[in-house]
């Protein structure tokens, strides 16, 4: 039988404990979401009375999470898509072109990035109210788009600094305009980087609660707001496991997205075009 070095054994033990610490709460939430109401306070970790899938249908249909899914998807996809497009163009301007005050623009971006959203909350509210988009999905899409920008620009920045500028010059010599350089050369090369930025800002946008609870009404309520509501209702109704089902439903899309996009991280598309 193969013998293991004691250190290896210890290392694996520590790793197992850590994994348990991280995965434990998830498993607990999922397990609880499938329990019957009566079983909620029982000491059993796993549901013993059979799996109560109706907790999910109740949350999804009766309490209208389906509709909130649609809202969240609409707002998040629009904001991330728009944000990445703007970030790509902004990063091109700031890191691939040369002009006066280029660094000033970048510093300004960093400053804005450090501003907490609470600071601009009231002015944004008034602005949206006056322009008539308050309570419409635009009232979320616009600030969320701005929220996508800083991180995406930062991620693109390090990528653009690595990518040889001669690629742009070659395209320019070949007759490409600025937009063509972005669309035909930089965009295809940036796909893995954009996927990274997209997944991170998707999570951030999907989970946003503060603006979502203020700028729209229940017709455009997103998942985090809806889950908070269900939390209240379920507590009153005494249907605790259904609350857990709602929580599972709220992070399920992110989980699936991550599993799906994980491959993009390892795929290094941008190699071999220049000497390396």
């Amino acid at each position, binding site marked *: 039988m193969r013998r293991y070095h004691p250190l290896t054994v210890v290392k694996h033990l520590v790793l197992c404990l850590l994994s348990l610490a991280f995965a434990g709460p998830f498993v607990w939430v999922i397990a609880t979401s499938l329990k019957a109401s009566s079983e909620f306070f029982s000491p059993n970790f796993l549901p013993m009375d059979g799996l109560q899938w109706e907790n999910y249908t109740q949350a999804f249909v009766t309490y209208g999470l389906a509709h909130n899914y649609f809202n969240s998807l609409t707002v998040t996809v629009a904001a991330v898509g728009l944000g990445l497009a703007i970030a790509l163009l902004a990063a091109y301007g700031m890191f691939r072109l040369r002009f006066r005050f280029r660094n000033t623009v970048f510093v300004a971006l960093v400053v804005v990035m450090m501003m907490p959203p609470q600071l601009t909350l009231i002015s944004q509210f008034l602005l949206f109210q006056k322009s008539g988009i308050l309570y419409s999905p635009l009232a979320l899409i616009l600030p969320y788009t701005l929220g996508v920008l800083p991180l995406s620009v930062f991620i693109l920045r390090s990528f653009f600094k690595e990518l040889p500028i*001669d*690629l742009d*010059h*070659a395209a*320019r*010599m*070949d007759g490409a305009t600025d937009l063509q350089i972005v669309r035909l050369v930089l965009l*295809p090369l940036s796909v893995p980087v954009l996927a990274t930025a997209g997944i991170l800002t998707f999570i951030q946008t999907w989970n946003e609660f503060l603006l979502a609870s203020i700028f729209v009404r229940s017709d455009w309520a997103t998942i985090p707001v809806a889950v908070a509501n269900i939390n209240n209702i379920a507590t009153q109704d005494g249907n605790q496991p259904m609350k857990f089902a709602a929580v599972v439903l709220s992070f399920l899309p992110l989980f699936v997205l991550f599993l799906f996009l994980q491959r993009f991280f390892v795929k290094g598309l941008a190699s071999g*075009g220049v000497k390396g």
Partner: protein
Amino acid sequence: MVGPSGCGKSTLLRTIAGLEDATSGEIVLNGRDVTNVAPRDRGFAMVFQNYALYPHLTVAENLGFALRLAGQPKAEINAAVDRVAETLQITDLLTKKPRQLSGGQRQRVAIGRAIVRQPSVFLFDEPLSNLDAALRAQMRVELAALHQRLGTSMIYVTHDQVEAMTMADRIVLMRAGLVEQQGTPLDLYNRPANRFVAGFLGAPRINFIPARIAAAGWAELASGRRMQIPAATLAPGTEVTLGLRPEHFVVDDTSNIDDSFEGKVVLEERLGRETVLHIDAPDLPLDPSEQTHLVIQRNVQSAFSTGDVLRFWFPPKRSLFSVPTERR
């Protein structure tokens, strides 16, 4: 355009290309001022040092990129790409991506991308500097042949004086952002405008000997010896630097010429067809800031070895000299 690293030759090339803005002066192409014309409207094509192939496109797509941007029909693009690929013998690479190619193959594709547009001028930015020596020599010949066949003007930037000497019709030699001299390669080699030009061109490097004009046609060396030089109208007493090309020395043990010097071989580089001798010659003191030993090149397989003493002389007509102002 040739010159040491950082002398501004690449910047000049990029300014010609339109990738850098000219802060002053103008760029004239066939009598037309193109200083403020966008790069794509100048009709130039450029080959970059690091090839700058589009990594996400196949070789064929790389070659046809400019034509695609110009809105040419697909059939025409394919025909042009095939033609160029055949010229450069890269037809079997057309479906590959740049990362699957070797350095030499990438270089060919980069050149092909320039050719396919049929530009009015080719701009090369040190295109061979990433290749190994053998491939570089081969590509040098191919580029020269390509130039002959296409008959299109090529501006070629290099820091390698061998490339400059062998490939150029005219050389522009630059230093610190300024043009030091321009002309045919042999012009620059035989009649350098100043000490820098004389020192930059030629391998092994020219020997610099500090001296003073003693009389018309004679210079006095630091050792007190006199040496005959081409007659010039410099006042006696003027400090000059003599430039003696290594290949112009005559090694002759039997000669009784007054002008001959004696020296001891300290190092011998046998290059096969020729031999480079590094010599310690106290009678012929060198400029110590430039070199420590006199260098003599012999176009024979030398019979000397380290420690041998030999006699040599230098034909007066061959010496180049410059005064401290650095002009010839």
